[in-house]
């Protein structure tokens, strides 16, 4: 097991988890349009499947949000 901080919350995850698998596990909304940072650095969308998370990593999901008028 390893500990990740995902969206501000520390939790246990299985070792060698990929970013794509994490996105699925966390049921990220609109995963095709989410922006991700790992340890405060952007991850290219094309690299999600190959990115293997390490113990202690901090992962953040950034979502498109419209809203306002109308």
């Amino acid at each position, binding site marked *: 097991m390893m500990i990740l901080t995902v969206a501000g919350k520390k939790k246990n995850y299985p070792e060698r988890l990929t970013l794509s698998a994490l996105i699925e596990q966390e049921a990220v909304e609109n995963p095709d349009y989410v922006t991700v940072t790992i340890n405060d650095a952007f991850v290219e969308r094309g690299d999600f499947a190959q990115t293997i998370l390490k113990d202690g990593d901090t992962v953040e999901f950034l979502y498109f949000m419209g*809203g306002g008028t109308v």
Partner: protein
Amino acid sequence: MPFTNEQLERYSRHIILKEVGIKGQKKLLNAKVLIIGAGGLGAPAALYLAAAGVGTIGIADADEVDLSNLQRQVIHTTADLGKAKVKSAAETMTAINPDVKVNTYRTFVTSQNIMNLIAGYDFILDGTDNFPAKFLINDACVMAKKPFSHAGIIRFRGQLMTYVPGQGPCYRCVFKNPPPKDAVPTCKQAGVIGAMGGVIGSLQAMEAIKYIIGQGKLLTGRLLTYDALKMEFHTIKLPRDEHCAVCSAYPTITKLIDYEQAECDMKK
């Protein structure tokens, strides 16, 4: 110009703050803020900026007040139904504070008019509902070197960030390009709790005020998110994208773009 007795009393709760004082209140009275969108975000922001004595407030919106707006757009009342939103907003702001000069622009922002619109203002507040407008405002502010507050709200969630030229990432560093039409739901499709506009729009007003008086830490390089159901605020550190298409040293976007508006966002 020295303050009148009435102004000293009106702004007394500001003036007593060491971070504001007479000096800060003068800065507010001399400041010019443009609010784009007189809706869920723009309405509360406009109310607080007018009450705070921001001397010149511009407000841009092409729409009229609709019954479905009143659940959250607190600057308009039932008596304003059918009225231009900018007119209704201007009337409320002037009624709150006659010190404020309100400039109204009854128009959608486009690549053709946005540079002229923002030119005379110190700070821009994005209160629009759609991604083409959000990207346009970002790009225009980057090109014109204007600070702005970006925000979005949907359902029970909201978020905001502040761009200051040379001090951190822009909206495009984070979100690259607008999502395809209908890929991401809008408030109209998904709904939004009215008070969310109050929370996030007020935070945008707070950023504008802090920028003007030069106090505190702005949301540059940070996205503040708010989840009302969990009742949690969370701050996400935002890096700059060194290859950002608009704000990097070698931008590939040098002209403003009018992205296609999702149909559901078009005028009803």
